[in-house]
């Protein structure tokens, strides 16, 4: 295995909070993750150039007091905006989960139309239900998407945990995201058909049920659900039921839901 050479940078600090499980997920996927404080990148004591994957993790950066991910994006743009651009240019991978998705959208790394990684044209705003919500969702994954992280996947169940996850953009932008297959994953009914904005399947009122998007290269990916929180079969809400089904021979052991680790494995495979 050469995968351990793939170094992944996991951001920490300033109220981020999913760094440990994200690092764990990367490790399970065969990468070598390092948790790095935002200030350590800004002050140059850790170099982005040493990494091939950068993960903007979930949490409440700067308390999310002025819009989720807003201040983190401002801080990153002002201090390491050019280094981030180079990181993407160099063919590396960027993943934004939940607060990280909100941040990279505010940075303009997504949707990255026409190679422009500074333009904000989509947003994640307050859930239509008016509240923070923790629940599991079914995602339909676009098999034609260039997204590196979802290669070979058509559906996945993951937890969402956010108050500001409603995906918003002008109609033309939404159309372009769909046409170019940059709309990577969409909230769906349990059978995989579109949620069509039905609550709680689409938990936040996202336009076109969009849960995650990538840039045109597929190397920058952001999503509201948390793949790192489905890092073990027992994270799945029905695992005790499924276990009984296996015991009784109703389903086979390899029919268990695919965990979120697959997204990280895809990233490692891409770089290997």
């Amino acid at each position, binding site marked *: 295995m050469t995968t351990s050479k793939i170094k992944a940078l996991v951001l*920490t*600090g*300033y*109220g981020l*909070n*999913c760094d*440990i*499980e994200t690092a*764990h*997920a990367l490790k399970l996927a065969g990468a070598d993750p390092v948790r790095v*404080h935002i*200030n*350590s990148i800004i002050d140059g004591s850790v170099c982005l150039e040493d990494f091939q994957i950068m993960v903007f993790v*979930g*949490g*409440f950066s*700067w*308390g*999310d*007091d*002025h*819009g989720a991910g*807003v*201040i983190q994006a*401002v*801080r990153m743009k*002002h*201090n390491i905006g050019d280094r981030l651009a180079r990181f993407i240019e160099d063919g590396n991978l960027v993943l934004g989960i939940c607060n990280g998705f909100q941040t990279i959208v505010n940075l303009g790394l997504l949707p990255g139309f026409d190679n422009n990684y500074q333009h*904000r*044209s989509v*947003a994640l*705003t*307050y*859930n*239509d*239900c*008016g*509240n*923070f919500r*923790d*629940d*599991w969702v079914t995602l339909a994954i676009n098999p034609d998407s260039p997204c590196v992280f979802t290669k070979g996947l058509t559906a996945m169940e993951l937890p969402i*945990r956010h108050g500001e996850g409603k995906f*918003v*953009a002008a109609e033309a932008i939404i159309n372009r995201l769909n046409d170019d297959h940059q709309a990577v994953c969409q909230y769906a009914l349990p059978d995989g058909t579109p949620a069509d904005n039905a609550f709680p399947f689409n938990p936040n009122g996202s336009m076109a049920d969009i849960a995650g998007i990538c840039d045109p290269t597929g190397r920058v990916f952001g999503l509201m659900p*948390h793949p790192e*929180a489905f*890092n*073990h079969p*027992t*994270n799945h*809400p*029905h695992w*005790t*039921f499924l*276990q*009984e*089904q296996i015991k*009784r021979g*109703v389903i086979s052991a390899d029919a268990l839901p695919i965990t979120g680790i697959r997204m990280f494995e895809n990233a490692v495979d891409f770089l290997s």
Partner: protein
Amino acid sequence: MPHRLEITLKPDLFDAEGQGIRQKASSYFDILIDSIRTVHIITIDAELSDLQRNTVQSEIFTNPVTQESSYDPLPIAFDWCIWVGYRPGVKDNPGSTAVEAIEDVLGIRFKKDEDVYTSRRFCLNGAGLTRSEVELIAGELLSNDIIQQVKIFSRKEWDVKKGIGYNIAKVKLDHTPTVSTIPMDSDEALKTVSHERNLALNDNDVPVIRAYFQDPAVFARRKKMGLSDPTDVELEYISQARSDHCNHNTFGGIFTYTDFETGETQTINSLFKTYIETPTLELKKKKDWVISVLWDNAGVGRFDKDNYYVITGETHNSPSNMEAYGGAITGIVGVYRDPMGTGLGSKLIMGSYGFCVGDRDYKGALKPKLHPRRLLDGVIEGVRDGGNKSGIPTGFGQVTFHPGYMGKCLVFVTALGLMPAKVSGKPSETKTTSPGELIVMCGGRVGKDGIHGVTASSETFSAHTPAGHVQIGDPYTQKKMHDFLLEARDAGLIPFITDNGGGGLSSSVGESALLSNGCEVYLEKVPLKYDGLDQWEIWISESQERMTVAVRPEDIDRFMALSKKHAVESTVIGKYTDSGKLQISYNDVICAYVDMDLLKSGFPKWEFDAEWRPADQRGLYEPILAEPVDYNALLLDMISRPNICSREWITRQYDHEVQGTSVIKPLVGRDRDVYSDATVIRPVLESTRGIVFTQALLPMYSTIDAYHMTTCTIDEAVRRMVAVGGNPDHIGGVDNFCWPDIAYDEKKNPDGKFKAAQLVRSCKALSHMCLTYGIPLLSGKDSMYVDGHLPGRYGESHKVSALETMQFSCIGVIDDIEKCVTMDVKSPGDLVYVLGETKNELGGSEYYDLFGYIGINVPRVDPGKFIPIYHALYQAIEKGLAASAHGVYRGGLGIHLAMMAMAGNLGLDIDLAKVPADGVLRNDTFLFSESAGRFIVTIAPKCQAAFEKLCEKIPCACIGTVRQTPVFDISDGNKNLISLDVAELKAAWKRPFGDLI
């Protein structure tokens, strides 16, 4: 000139916040509003150039996709506008992060007097809205006058240029810090000062305090330091340390307990020592997994050979009762500091909540400060923001409604942590301070907030309670500090750590200096939020998000460098010594100089008379109630009662999956919507070991006897743990007592002796249960004075006291999480078993309460009979025989069979005649008796023989089967009693709060 930026969502976007307010106005007050738009206002009180303010506007505070903004009032049409901003001195968290962002983007530093203030205004449209309706919305939905100020504008009153004007909530004290000397010519004089200064000194302590300061030797030593009579700093220090909150005078007091059932009188010297410490120490000897108990901020147990778990539970009742959101967020964020300050510091891995409030739909004449519905909304949101923003899963929780909590609500918060067994090769659970080490304060700054919080929570809530003790916790600042301190711990930089909670520096420094036997503190070094605090205020302020750490002088540079990296403020404020003295100075002038052991001796114990009269002597009896006929309607009504029905709307607001450790979630089943018995997490992601955690609270039984309230509560918590696979040989307990005032007073508290007896009995039961079940008490707290005086309709007021309440938490370790089970029935054809006997025990039950009865046959716990049942079930789960397991709790067998069917979305076919029972003659008793010690278990038919073998020696019977058709059928062996669609049951169960999100 300040800059006032108004920000709002673009008009074509849905304003969820406004919609939420509209819905509440309609459902709470029948006020119809056509539309509401929310405007967020950022008032920057700093000098900025035009370019700078434009940069700030576009780069930080306006999202080009979703928002629009303006430094002039936004031209939004309204019939009424409500502006809400914080009062001066109230923590404005968004204001602080705005300063950080502006400084970063502009590359500037705010000057000393410059700041950012956030507020909001709401633009209401509705032709018929009246000013009084708008005032009601402003006062009851949008603000709390304790922490916020409000302005209301009609369309006519609005000046389109001026808008809301400039509201700078700056604290201006214009006060020179002054140390006062307190004359103490007589006991009476000191008592008067105590009252005037709100010191809350106990009258009996006054002579002891005077004697100390008048001791010639003490006087001479103090004179050398330039002191004579005690200073306010010193008296405040003594007052804090002697408060019931810090010193637990009630639990340490002397009780004269007379039992009128037996006629015997007993003197109990300290409930704590007799009923908590003694059994726990005895059990610690037997259970090698008990690592550290009874002295630190939280208890410590072994998780595996490399890791310890840490647990404690707190309440935050008085502050939440006045400002629900602020009180609750401060409570949860505050309890999270306890594990951070336990041993050398632990990482937080889970939290839980418990809310006890009045009826949500209360329509009576009493007027509490906050209506129960509003109070509940506030505490839910406070724990939500505090937990979610801390990045700690809120894995468990409960809500209890009872009119007794109208006087004062209860807000329980519990915290679990994990720490390595060794830090830099040394045991992590021990710590001490040593002479020469520096005293470092980390985290937030000190302001007037929280002053006299400790003494206020030790008093019954009254109109004179100072509002200053209400605060708003700041999880963001604390999360940064949490990450910093763990890194400093692992670098070996922390020989001692504790949190600043009640009593502030006075408690944290005062107590930690006992270990080194002395300290010097330089109060002028303590970073303040604003100038003008007196020295005593700096010393006792309870400003949140602070830890006190000892750091060796040679490590201080590394410690400070790490602090800077994590953007956490840390300040050296003194040093530990071995002088035997607590020495405090301000700009080199001594303002306190007392012996470290002053608090240790000489103070009189509190004394209580306790008189127990059993329920029959108090006129309680079983109601004359003939058996019902329409069981379908009865079950539907029972299952939709407020204390039984679904509160999914609360659970879903709490992130219970952050950290990626969730194994058994708070909501389980096919639709993920029925409550689990307990929560299981996998705190070390690389391991398949788990922690199981659960809680129980059954205050209704206290009306009959707090002894049985206590035994049943503990038994329920234990069963909840065992039901998911917890090991009955590893149960750690946390007791949280919340009791009404027990000090007898002929006029003010005529039933004080009875309440004191209830407390004694509860402690006796606690001790008995711990010893028989083998539960060491890893941690525990008491909160007394759960009483309030509520105004009524005619200007009179009523004392309302809570039921005697104890929340009990259980924690255990699961060897293999993959063996855990959930309570949803799994498969058609499975056999349904009941373990444990059902008895005629409807006293205090939900069923009797439906009719307004109490009864007298309260459920009894029989450890000798119950414990074998728990071991049998544990074995069955270990062997993989149980497909589902669930305890029988509040509401009885009928309710809990229904829960399992609803969770599995499958039908049940049950024969009540087969239920193991003792003395039960009626079907309503079978269905609704709340006898303890029972479980419902389902198993696959192929496991029948093995399961029955395990259960040979315990009361156990197969009472029916699971079936595919989702119909819930119960018969008594002859005739069908209940036949309901599971969907119909679930609809009824969800109906009361189903519309809430």
